[in-house]
């Protein structure tokens, strides 16, 4: 494997296919780089989860999580995010068929679902603050907002990123570069989905139980 990349760099451009193959290998490198980035992101979330667990009983006289969590809204958030993960998968499938319209269409659906998720989350946060649980209320709430908020921030960045990729798809069509970008953003989206499942279980389910 190691060699193919260099060889590709060394033997370019006799034909277009060569060009193509070489880009393909560079894109493979980038894909691997992104996987490694995800490992670091896992550790980032892992650390946040650990701090959350350590501080999960530190209410300091403030309200407990179970008193304020409103599960219906959170379950709705969960379903929306899971669905968006599914639609981002459909987008990749469309891309693999070479269907640009289907790809952009499913990406739009994914973005809309993601935006709905963020809206619900922001509403939830605002309600919580209104009910007297802000980030400075106690260590528990600090950890809660930081963990859930970091996930939300990741989702928001993903939204902007997806929109940017849609515009690029409009400009350049499906080629090796845009293909890699769609694959990466979809991978990212699935990853956030998995993180959310942990958030849902550890923060909300175990918090309420």
């Amino acid at each position, binding site marked *: 494997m190691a060699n193919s990349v260099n060889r590709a760099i060394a033997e370019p451009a006799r034909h277009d296919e060569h060009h193509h193959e070489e880009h393909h290998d560079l894109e493979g490198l980038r894909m691997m780089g992104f996987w490694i980035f995800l490992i670091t992101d896992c550790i980032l979330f892992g650390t946040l989860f650990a701090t959350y667990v*350590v501080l999960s*009983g*530190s*209410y*300091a*006289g403030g309200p407990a999580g179970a008193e304020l969590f409103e599960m219906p809204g959170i379950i709705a958030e969960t379903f929306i995010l899971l669905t968006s993960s599914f639609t981002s998968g459909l987008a990749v499938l469309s891309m693999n068929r070479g269907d640009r319209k289907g790809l952009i269409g499913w990406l739009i659906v994914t973005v809309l679902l993601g935006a709905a998720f963020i809206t619900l989350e922001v509403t939830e946060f605002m309600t919580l603050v209104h009910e007297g649980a802000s980030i400075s209320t106690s260590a528990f709430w600090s950890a809660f907002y930081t963990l859930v908020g970091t996930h939300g921030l990741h989702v928001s960045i993903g939204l902007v990123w997806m929109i940017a990729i849609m515009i690029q798809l409009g400009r350049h069509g499906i080629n090796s570069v845009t293909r890699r970008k769609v694959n990466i953003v979809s991978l990212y989206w699935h990853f956030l989905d998995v993180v959310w499942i942990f958030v849902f279980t550890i923060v909300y389910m175990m918090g309420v139980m």
Partner: protein
Amino acid sequence: MMKGLRRLTAVVSLFAMAILMTGCSDKLLVLNPKGAVGKQQLDLILISTVLCLVVIVPVLILTFYIVWKYRHKPDSTTKYEPEWEHSTKLEAIWWGIPIVIIIILAIVTARYTYNLEPSKPLEHEAKPLVIQVTSLDWKWLFQYPEQGIATVNYLQFPEDVPVRFELTSDAPMNSFWIPQLGGQIYTMSGMAMKLHLIADEPGSYLGMGANFSGREFGKMQFTAKATSQEEFDTWVKQVKGSSPPLTDEGYEQLAIPSVSDVTTYSSIPEGLFNRIVTKYGGHNHGSGGEDANGHSEHDAREEEVATESPESTNHDSSNHEGHTNHE
């Protein structure tokens, strides 16, 4: 094995002392302990040093020998084997030796760690004297609950009587260290740590705050004076008779960040130490705490720490905010 080690250690340490300590023996506090804990720690330091030297000295000699012998000269006659790159036998030897040494050291360390666990009471017929230590910005408050007195930056206790220090902090973390009596332990807010020490002979020992806690932390030094029991009792009486009492307001004043001289107080407010501990919630601090607090011995104080109500926390934390604003 331990005995043999100790004997070897004794020989080497005599030798080391002869070289190292001529002229300045009493300055090397760690190597000149005056209490059982410090003495055991010194034993351990010497044992581990010897174990390390067993490997280190031959390696150092080998280094100089190889570098000298195989240096390049125009007419080098030493053996030259540029392709020689592996020898299972040799490599097994130098994986093996450190492994053996580390196993021995690990066993020694484990045994001493249990023996010297700071929260464990010392074996001694005398009843331990309790001293409650609070590190403040930038001074030490010592309370003697049984005698009902308190001091700042000065400790006195009888020799040959175990002292049980209960330690907490009402400021950034510090570390309580009297090198000649034994090793240090952190003082942390919201927790009551324990440290047992004993002085085998009377004397004035240097004590200090070993962990950086802000601007004037270097001034957090104190004298720990071990005296005879009679002298100690006289001192307590004298303090009771001539010093002002420590009040809650007085404590608030004391807690304001500043440097302080030696002070003594004839009485202490009821339950002040526990209030300092519970002020910060008295919760479990991560990996710390549990073992140190829980397993050794239970007393009423700790129960109090565990069962504080949410209201009191709230109240106290606002108190705390009041005091940190002074800065």
